């Protein structure tokens, strides 16, 4: 290829147009856009499911749905939010931003990248199809076991369980493919001069995430496959009558499930210091400390899994080990919180929407983290376990700590991606509505849990009525405020005030050296990092 065609390449982007562009694309920005769009759609789907639940729980007595449908909604809500909303959002940002941040022209394995994305829509269909089939009298609806698939309940279940197992297989393959791609890209395609210890925090977060995914997804795939053979092919992995053990499934599931929490959070922990340094106009504090903390959390995350089932009857030494190792996660997290706050300290802060979301994120994720520390205590966990206290706790970590962090990232990079500024007023309105209604939804749930309301029940005793009503009303406000977010994104994509290349006054990093929006093929000339 002669140099003239390379130079020419930028203006003349010869790719198919229309639907074929999106089906066949291997461009990291196109694939990133598809991931993010898919994630937004599934966020709304998963959200509407939970609004159905909150409507049912608005007052005591069954009004809207039967208990079986209720159980289907809670399980599919969780699977969609985790696998189809939060994970694809992080992968979408990885596709968009990692090549731009490390000065690479694209991801290392572009065709694999395309395949990784196109496995997602079929798996989303597999997850939700049983709802539709049940309407036509086929099967008895979707997975009704909660997202955790615990046998023997999942062995009793209908075709929804099989659909969910295959959906998890596809989602797992997609995640592993994405992870391989990110690892290969980060190891081989960093711009000259960008050593590992100069990589942006977001790239670091994703590198650890990718290793965790590759380490744990096969275990999940194995566990659900064992479930499948128990269901249909006469094996007894999880059946005591055949020498198996139902609790073994919980060990396998949470060997994946606990690292999964950090898989969802590490990319977001990468956003936070970058956004903080931009809006504090001051370099982030403790880069090395943060990188080492990421490693420590990644390593600890695979050795603490049994704290998800302390009440299952583990021996005392195991209880003590899992309690203390779980508490140990707070040590690197304390270092991270310290670095984030120290980055703001004596800066020159301004509070545009991404910064608002980030500051709100630190406070709310802090609540999630601190309640997690209390949950690690085995004796008290006997009370918290499977009560609404836990529901509130993990929504502070996954909605506030996950989704709100993603939202900070969306507002931060959307001008770079689209070339237009979003509507700042609407963005701030979205933040305040989200933060307030989120707290009003979940603070009552802490108290419900303490008072003794178990999770996953379709109807409840009258003593729980007031808090449930507050929680339901706030959940609807929370759900509806997300429409502002959707509107703001769509109108920013379609037009608006032009964004500058640097977008934010304090933004630093390779992605801000490109035009807004960046050219279809960026860095055809390799940048160097000093």
């Amino acid at each position, binding site marked *: 290829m002669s140099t003239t065609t390379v130079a020419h390449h930028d203006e003349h982007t010869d790719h198919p147009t229309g639907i074929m562009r999106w089906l066949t694309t291997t461009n990291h920005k196109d694939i990133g856009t598809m991931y993010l769009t898919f994630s937004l759609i599934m966020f709304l789907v998963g959200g509407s499911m939970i609004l159905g639940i909150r409507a049912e729980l608005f007052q005591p007595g069954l009004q809207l749905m039967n208990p079986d449908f209720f159980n289907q909604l809670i399980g599919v809500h969780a699977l969609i939010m985790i696998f189809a909303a939060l994970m694809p959002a992080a992968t979408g940002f990885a596709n968009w931003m990692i090549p731009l941040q490390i000065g690479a022209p694209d991801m290392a394995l572009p065709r694999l990248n395309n395949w990784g994305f196109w496995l997602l829509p079929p798996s989303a269909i597999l997850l939700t199809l049983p709802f539709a089939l049940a309407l036509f009298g086929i099967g008895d609806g979707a997975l009704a076991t909660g997202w955790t698939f615990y046998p023997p309940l999942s062995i009793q279940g209908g075709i929804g369980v099989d659909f969910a197992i295959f959906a998890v297989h596809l989602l797992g393959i997609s995640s592993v493919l994405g992870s391989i791609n990110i690892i290969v890209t980060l190891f081989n395609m960093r711009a000259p001069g960008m050593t590992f210890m100069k990589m942006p925090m977001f790239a670091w977060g994703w590198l650890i995430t990718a290793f965790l995914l590759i380490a744990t997804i096969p275990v999940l795939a194995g566990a659900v496959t064992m479930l499948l053979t128990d269901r249909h092919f006469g094996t007894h992995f999880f059946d005591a009558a055949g020498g198996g053990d139902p609790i073994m499934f919980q060990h396998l599931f949470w060997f994946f499930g606990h690292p999964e929490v950090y898989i969802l959070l590490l990319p977001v922990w990468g956003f936070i210091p970058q956004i903080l340094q931009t809006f504090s106009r001051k370099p982030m504090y403790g880069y090395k400390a943060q990188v080492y903390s990421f490693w420590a959390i990644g390593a600890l995350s695979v050795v603490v899994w049994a704290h998800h089932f302390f009440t299952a*009857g583990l021996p*005392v030494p195991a209880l003590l080990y899992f309690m203390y190792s779980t508490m140990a996660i707070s040590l690197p997290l304390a270092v991270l919180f310290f670095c984030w706050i120290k980055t703001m300290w*004596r800066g*020159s802060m301004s509070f545009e929407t991404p910064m608002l979301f980030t500051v709100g994120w630190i406070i709310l994720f802090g609540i999630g983290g601190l309640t997690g520390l209390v949950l690690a205590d085995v004796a008290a966990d006997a009370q918290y376990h499977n009560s609404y206290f836990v529901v509130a706790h993990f929504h502070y970590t996954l909605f506030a700590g996950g989704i709100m962090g993603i939202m900070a990232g969306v507002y931060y990079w959307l001008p770079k991606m689209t070339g237009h500024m979003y509507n700042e007023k609407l963005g701030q309105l979205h933040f305040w509505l989200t933060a307030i209604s989120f707290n009003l939804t979940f603070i009552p749930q802490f108290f419900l849990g303490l008072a003794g309301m178990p999770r996953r029940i379709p109807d409840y005793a009258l003593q729980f009525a007031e808090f449930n009503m507050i929680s339901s009303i706030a959940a609807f406000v929370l759900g509806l405020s997300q429409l502002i977010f959707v509107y703001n994104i769509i109108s920013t994509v379609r037009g608006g005030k032009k964004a500058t290349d640097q977008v934010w006054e304090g933004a630093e990093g390779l992605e801000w050296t490109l035009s807004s929006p960046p050219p279809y093929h960026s860095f055809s000339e390799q940048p160097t990092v000093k």
Partner: protein
Amino acid sequence: MLKQAMKKIGFGLFLLLTAPLALAEYRWNFPEPVTPMALDTLHVHNKFMLIVAVIFVVVLAIMIYSLIKHRKSIGHQAVADKAPSTATEIFWTLIPFVILLVIDFVIMGIPAYHSVVMMEDTRNESDMVLKVTGSQWRWQYEYMGNTDKGSQDGLVDAKGIKFVSNLSTPQNQVDGTTPPVDTPDSPYLLDVDNRLVLPVGAKVRILMTSTDVLHNWWVPQFGSSRLAVPGFIRETWVQVDKAGTYRGQCKELCGKGHGYMPVVVDALPKEEYAAWVALKKNEINEQAAGADKEWTKDELMEQGKVVYEKNCAVCHMASGAGLPPAFPALTGSKITTSQIFDADGKYLPDSHMDRVLNGVRVMPAWKALLNDTEIAAVITYERNALGNSVGDVVQPAQVKAARQ
């Protein structure tokens, strides 16, 4: 005029806002603990909550100070762009690390250790043993007898008492056709037909198991919660120190009836407990006698209706229509209308008797849950009601024979 109206509205709002606070003080924390374990849990919980609240407030205060003082809009300039030396950075980041190290493993870790050891000590000093079996969607209690210590202490031995405890909230309230009714004696969704009765002050070692899926036996005021695993025995213990009625629920998703398997425990002083044990034992003797006599069809139908509505209607519906495809109809079904016994009086495979006794897939094996009379009655009822009219009768003696 308007002012007065506003005042009234304001006062009304004030009442509305404060009423729940005054009425429901306990709802802001765990309910009153009545066992040593729950008391310990409450203390640990309060202490840890205080610790994390202090951490939260201190960190938040530092952050808010920074958010107010170090903002561009009031002209604060960012300090010079100078990276700290590695030594300084290590020093500063070690401070939060060490603070948390002390909090985690000393301030929280030591009391947490003692709580765990106490919680798992199910055997030492125990007075009696109780077996709790979870099934979809009811609890079964079986008194396994006193330990040596219990007998020495003069605790009356309840060995042999065994019963099933079902939700007693009427079905039409549960399925939402009529609004919930709540009384202090029988709170909505939190009352059962047969309550578990325990003696006050006795340490009860609880063996936990399940016949089908995972369940979790939980009474918040007891502080203990343990998974019931089919095919395995798990242990926990309670020692209720205060007489009263305590209510809890199943805490592990166990299917569509998960929200409808409450736990209700009456803790009675030792003398009242002894009286209850005597009454219960008498009842068992009467039932045993009943199983040997010949029952009339009307008697069986009458009891069968009660058993059906308590145990079967949740899946097969009160009308017998079921919820196909998961829960088949009994009205006109092959199993409820075909022959049960062969010429020798043995029950046929896949017959009505086989299905009720042994279950299949989601259908529980009722032989562990119902006595001979109850099984005979419910089979007779299902064959001669719910739109069926086979006309035959199953006697308790036949069920007794079928169990062999």
